[in-house]
């Protein structure tokens, strides 16, 4: 199964028919090998992508849906309270393949050899999927964020001293934390700023446009800004380079009426991720959005949904400062 999915990810863009066939086969394989998913899915007999029983992300805070051989776990942000959602994987091969391929496709010529990361370092936070992703995209990254203390003062020194284009990987709240600190840099043209994690925290909400204006005033104005939308529970990410978030061909995105879970023109974002080979491939989020022309527009969180996202860790640290 894994080899088939690897071929799907590395091969030409699959047709809808091929994607559906692969997803349905993967679902049946998962039903056989993941006991909790088998119980969750019950008697479901999906015939199309939207029929595959989608696991609500909140359920993954209660019980792991885990392949018996899974050993790697990514966890959702768990800062001040509450259980953390868990994404168990047998291995991270397809996660890494998926992350690299789609990033390189969407953000070509990114100066990853010179990366400053304001997301959790995998060595310190091995269960952070975001940190793992950044490490895959930029193995030479330097890490300037601590979950307890926030953005390190060394970040500005590194930014100011960067002699060549730089890749700045950050969450929205870590960027705000950086801008709260004294410092100035003029990043070289061709530098890329990746912002992820959402702008709405537990205590504060950031305005994306204001944050960007503030950042340009301190980092330079000739930067490429890209947005990343990913989730702990997914192995694939969507990238926004200016025209909306684009999912990779092996990640099917659809929207559900929040009340019923059935397909609707806009609503809860639901994903069928064929890179989730050993973990539930169909996920129902608590994020609202719309899919149009192959791109995803984010419309915020479902009202009353618990705040989540990798930005929260930075928000907590920023609040403590």
């Amino acid at each position: 199964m894994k080899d088939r999915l690897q071929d799907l990810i590395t091969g030409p863009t699959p047709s809808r028919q091929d994607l559906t066939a692969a997803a349905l086969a993967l679902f049946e394989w998962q039903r056989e090998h993941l006991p909790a998913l088998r119980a969750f899915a019950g008697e479901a007999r999906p015939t199309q992508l939207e029929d595959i029983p989608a696991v609500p992300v909140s359920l993954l805070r209660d019980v792991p849906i885990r392949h018996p051989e899974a050993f790697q776990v990514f966890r959702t942000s768990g800062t001040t309270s509450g259980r953390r959602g868990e994404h168990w994987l047998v291995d991270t091969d397809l996660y890494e393949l998926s992350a690299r391929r789609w990033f390189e496709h969407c953000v070509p010529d990114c100066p990853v050899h010179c990366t400053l990361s304001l997301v959790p370092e995998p060595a310190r936070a091995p269960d952070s999927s975001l940190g793992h992703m950044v490490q895959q995209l930029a193995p030479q990254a330097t890490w300037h964020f601590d979950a307890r203390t926030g953005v390190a003062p060394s970040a500005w020194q590194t930014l100011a001293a960067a002699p060549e284009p730089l890749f700045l990987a950050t969450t929205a709240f870590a960027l705000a934390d950086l801008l709260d600190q004294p410092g100035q840099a003029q990043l070289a043209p061709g530098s890329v700023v990746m912002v992820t994690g959402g702008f709405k925290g537990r205590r504060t909400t950031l305005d994306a446009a204001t944050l960007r204006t503030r950042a340009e005033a301190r980092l330079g104005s000739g930067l490429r800004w890209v947005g990343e939308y990913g989730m702990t529970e997914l192995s694939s990410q969507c990238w926004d380079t200016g025209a909306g978030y684009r999912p990779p061909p092996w990640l099917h995105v659809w929207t559900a009426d929040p009340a019923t879970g059935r397909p609707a023109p806009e609503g809860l974002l639901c994903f069928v991720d064929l890179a989730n080979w050993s973990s539930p491939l169909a996920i129902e989020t608590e994020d609202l959005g719309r899919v149009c022309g192959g791109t995803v527009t984010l419309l915020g969180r479902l009202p009353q949904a618990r705040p989540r996202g990798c930005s929260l860790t930075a928000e907590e640290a920023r609040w403590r400062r």
Partner: protein
Amino acid sequence: MAAVAQAVSVYGAMDPAPWHTGLSPEGARFALAHATAPYAGRSLAWPAGLRPPRRTVIWCAGNVFTAPLEWTATLAAAGGQIVLKAPSAVPEPALALARCFAAQGLPVQAHALPHDQAWHLLDDADAVLGFGSDSAMLALDARLGPSVRRALFGHRVSAAVVAGVRDVEGLVGDAVLYDGRGCKSPVAVFALAEAEAVAERLAAGLAEASVAVPRGRMEAAWGPRWRRRVGLARILDHAHAGDEWAVPVLPARWFEPEPLPRLVPVHPVADLGEVRQALAGLPLGSCATNLDPSAARALHQVLGFPVVTPPGGLHATALDGHHEDTDIRAVLGEELP
């Protein structure tokens, strides 16, 4: 008092379907019929030795639209003026209730206002009866002068404790009324015996009821919670579920006090200690049970439920002036010298 009886009768004959109660038209009609039926041929006595309030404000909640009826009728029958603060999201039931009473010459009025614009209604009130969220009741309490008599009811958790299937069909009606959103709706059924048979009976009853009385509106925020709880039950035990109802069977440690419409979890338990542990710290309302009377007393004494009733009786009113274990007349009335 004939005027009150006539007002209740007219109110009960109205069609609540357009009232934005969140219930289906059938659900709203079922609730209104259930709420008004006990008044037929009954009088609402006010105790001798108590002077009724001259002017009472009833602060209404939005989830159980018929809740103001009993107190409006009781206080109007005693000769008092009543001001209904209608919930701004669901104003029609209280406005209609006031119209029915006013048409009989009874001094009842209603105002649909947001909380923060309704404080002036409290002016000149000598008694206030409130229903709503804990925070709303705290805010209301803070607005009242020390001389204003008050009975304020925040959130309560009601449940059922059963041993076997006897009479459990009654719980279906308890769960269907108001789509399970009221303080007297059972948020869970604790089964001391025959849990699976209890779940099957409830499932069959809810499935049947959903045909005659379809579920009403499902709020967007409830959907993921509904699917999570059904999914959780499927993984940890099992669940019975239809499009509009669900009976997840879950260990008692997964008890959750949050009600979801027509979702009635069954928790198999070994003894009442397990129930007490699940309910610890919660403000308890009513409990339905099919235990024999001596065992049922423990639900009051050991668990702390102020009201214990047979299945099917959670929403029943005795028209005796009590809400839960509080005699509203004694709290709002003033002892005569």
